């Protein structure tokens, strides 16, 4: 079992998906999907322990040796990402039972879970594979299922949001494919390890440089780097609650992971950051992402859209860290990948609780919720504190290391942008807090009660994880530092 764990990690959800489509009743479909998700999560934990114990694990698909055969490889970074993605799914499943039964028609729920399992499989596949083209395959699997998931949202705008994402996402994926194609033309291989070996001789080749450019832009679209972020705002805003939370915690993060693999493992720091000005490009874009995202968030009347713009800014932090191309910078980026997933996931889940009771996520409708939905809003406040980056939360840890990396390199302008964005996050979170705690519910408002415990529990699990990661952070930070060190030095 253990030796096949890598491939089972992907195969189980992948096979589970079509099986789920045949399950007749919605609740059974949920049960099946939960079982699959928790299996995937258990497997990711096993992999993590194995990698921690004995180093990176490789696996040749179908026993065909690389570089012709497809290779799967899991090192510390991949293992951690696997735990993150499957963990977000696992925590969210109890939530999905209640929220999806309200947001999607009974007849379509089996299809929903099918698409969800496909998405999960796609994301997990992107992480484990060590073959550049295989990444594209899983990228498309996860993207196509994501478009469907978003389209299943209740709002009339969900379909439009899904279509917008489909167009832009396909462009992104196509760019990535073009880039990989260019690499294949010049090197004859698709295996990442092999590419890493062959590419250093080809650094002067303009085809290779173009390949990196295409791949980077394609991925940048997928992880919503400014100015390629426009699809994110609608997609997160109009998707079903569970989908928004799951995507916020996983989709962009996995694309960032692929970026790290391509840039550091395949191309190498020297080529990407010294021969080519990738660092400068990312720094500039991250600078704007951080400011624009936070600034626009302040003016959003729809709380989910506000959180989506906030995500744009937070992704800016991650890219900023990576753009420094130093161990400190990449550490900060890695930490924020995890911490943001925890914080944003929690926030979207909480907003989903509100949507469950109110049927709306407009800021206006949050009036007086502090009194009527105390546990929900308390979870919101605590997750928001992590987002803002105040002490004892996960967000503080990644913010500290980002500050450290920026100060260490003397990047004062970027530091000022990060500080401004933190203060702006205070403003847009403050709007929600003021509405919830300082205003009274009007008689013509929808009657509310506290959210059902099955919705609250996953929210609070994530909130507590935020606090735990904020307090017992030492080990996680050590791991991140080690991974960053290896990425920056050797690429593996």
């Amino acid at each position, binding site marked *: 079992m253990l030796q096949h764990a890598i491939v089972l990690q992907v195969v189980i959800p992948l096979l589970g998906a079509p099986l789920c489509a045949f399950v007749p009743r919605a609740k059974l479909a949920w049960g099946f999907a939960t079982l699959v998700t928790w299996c995937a999560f258990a497997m990711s934990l096993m992999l993590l322990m194995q990698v921690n114990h004995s180093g990176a694990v490789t696996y040749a698909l179908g026993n065909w040796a690389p570089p012709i055969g497809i290779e799967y490889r899991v090192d510390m970074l991949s293992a951690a990402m696997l735990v993150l993605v499957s963990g977000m799914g696992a925590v969210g499943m109890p939530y999905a039972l209640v929220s999806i039964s309200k947001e999607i028609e009974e007849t379509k729920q089996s299809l929903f879970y099918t698409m969800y399992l496909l998405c999960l499989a796609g994301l997990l596949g992107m992480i484990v594979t060590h073959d550049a083209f295989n990444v594209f395959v899983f990228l498309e699997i996860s993207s196509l299922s994501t478009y469907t998931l978003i389209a299943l949202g209740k709002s009339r705008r969900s379909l439009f949001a899904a279509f917008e994402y489909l167009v832009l996402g396909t462009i992104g994926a196509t760019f990535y494919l073009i880039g990989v194609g260019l690499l294949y033309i010049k090197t004859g291989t698709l295996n990442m390890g092999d590419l890493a070996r062959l590419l250093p001789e080809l650094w002067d080749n303009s085809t290779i440089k173009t390949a990196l450019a295409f791949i980077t832009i394609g991925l940048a679209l997928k992880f919503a780097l400014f100015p390629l972020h426009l699809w994110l705002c609608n997609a997160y805003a109009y998707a079903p609650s569970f989908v928004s939370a799951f995507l916020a915690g996983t989709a962009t993060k996995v694309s960032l992971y692929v970026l790290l693999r391509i840039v550091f493992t395949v191309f190498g720091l020297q080529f990407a950051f010294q021969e080519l000005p990738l660092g400068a490009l990312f720094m500039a874009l991250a600078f704007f992402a951080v400011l624009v995202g936070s600034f626009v968030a302040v003016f959003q009347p729809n709380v989910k859209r506000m959180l989506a713009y906030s995500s744009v800014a937070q992704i800016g932090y991650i890219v900023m860290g990576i753009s420094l191309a130093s161990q400190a910078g990449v550490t900060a980026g890695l930490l924020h990948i995890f911490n943001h997933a925890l914080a944003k996931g929690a926030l979207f889940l909480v907003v989903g609780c509100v949507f469950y009771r109110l049927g709306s996520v407009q800021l206006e409708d949050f009036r007086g919720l502090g009194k009527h939905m105390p546990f929900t809003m308390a979870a919101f406040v605590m997750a928001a504190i992590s987002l803002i980056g105040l*002490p004892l939360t996960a967000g503080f*840890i990644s913010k500290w290391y980002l*500050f450290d990396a920026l*100060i260490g390199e003397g990047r004062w302008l970027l*530091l000022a942008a990060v500080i401004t964005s933190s203060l702006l996050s205070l403003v847009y979170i403050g709007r929600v807090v003021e509405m919830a705690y300082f205003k009274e519910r009007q008689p013509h408002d929808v009657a509310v009660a506290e959210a059902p415990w099955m919705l609250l529990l996953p929210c609070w699990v994530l909130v507590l994880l935020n606090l735990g990661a904020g*307090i017992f952070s*030492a080990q996680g930070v050590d791991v991140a530092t080690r991974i960053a060190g290896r990425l920056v030095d050797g690429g593996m």
Partner: protein
Amino acid sequence: MLLLTLIIPLAAAAVISLLGRWPNLREAVSLFASSALFYAVVQLYIYGREAVYQGVELLRGVPIAFAVEPLGLIFALVASFLWIVTSLYSIGYMRSNKEYNQTRFYAWFALSLACAMGIAFAGNLLTLFIFYEMLTLCTYPLVTHSGTEASKKAGRTYLGILLATSVGLLLVAVVCTWNLTGTLTFTPGGIMNKHIGAGTIAILFFLYVYGVGKTALMPIHRWLPAAMVAPTPVSALLHAVAVVKAGVFTLIKIVVYILGVDFLKEIGVGGWLVYVAGATVILASLIALRQDNLKRLLAYSTISQLAYIVMAVATFAKEAIMVAAFHIAAHGIGKITLFFAAGAIYTASKKKRLSELAGIGKRMPWTMAAFTVGALSMVAVPPMAGFLSKWHLLSSAWEEGNYFVVGTLVVSTMLNVMYFMPIVFLAYFRPETTVHVTGNLHDHGEAPVIMVIALMVTALCTIGLFVWPGVFWGLAERVAG
């Protein structure tokens, strides 16, 4: 024992939040917890001078650490003792004014005290920063307690200024320090070394001074008058004692134990602070002169008094630092008396403005007596505690030849007299005006007994601190080294 100082108020907060339906029991918890806390702190003072606790490592090599240290003891003794008195006072105030959401009030109050203890006993800059931020957050619900539009706006100013300074300036300074020295532990003599250039230290110093927004130095002082919208017990304990003292405490700790007083003198950095602080002293007093709202006047007086402390620290002189540490206690006890009196006046008569206080001395003799004691302490007249601080600061400045400080002290004392003494005269020697302002209780007596008791206790302590300053003076000496 050290951890108990945190656990007691935290546990109290938890228990209080459950006791909403039994107000007497709930209040008993506050009183019991505050007494227990004070006992614990006193035990630390007597026995636990060397107590240290190291918790989980938040960053590489920097754990959440607590350590007992003289300055921290001053702060903790003052805060915990005054919590007992304020609890008594709050019972009277909240019930007489029929305030809403009292459970929430007492719970957040206890949490704020826990944060104050965390600040007092922080063993390194990271722990201090953590509890400093938490104090800001825990006091926010107290500032915005009434839930009105005005309190919401005040809350925005409060949170906005305090978080902007702490995230934008203080955190940067702390991370820089960590980057430069690799440690954040409070060490006598500071943790800086000569390899760090004077320019860097100068910038770091600036970031630290303005990063600690709770010192209410100009121009980041606006949060303090804004916070006066809170119920008076909040203004009394938190904004006369805990929060503002946390500010100057943090600044003194940073100057003495992170940057190092002698190091700063050697490098010649930070000379500008004396002038900024001195300007704040004078300007705040001038603004106080023009205030008609009693609490706002007291707020500006607090800004001025805090600036005394900052000015003292800024001279980098040993005796002045001693005064700064001592004034944490002296000002705290005097100011809380003044705020208690203001709250008593409001409770008894609904009056908030100076112009309405004519002849109130006859109706509220005890309250006004206490007010007079507090006012005289601010002006620094013996036998009030404030006299000791000002006298020693004056003598230290004179010896050092620091005529700016001397001048500032003289001018500001005159200004203090100009805005405090008229209130006393108005209260005692002017007849009551017959103009009835809506909302005021025209025919009223003294404030509720429990509030008067609290007032008298703090007033007597103000005098007591003058007569027996030994404990605090001894601790202050040890801070200055």
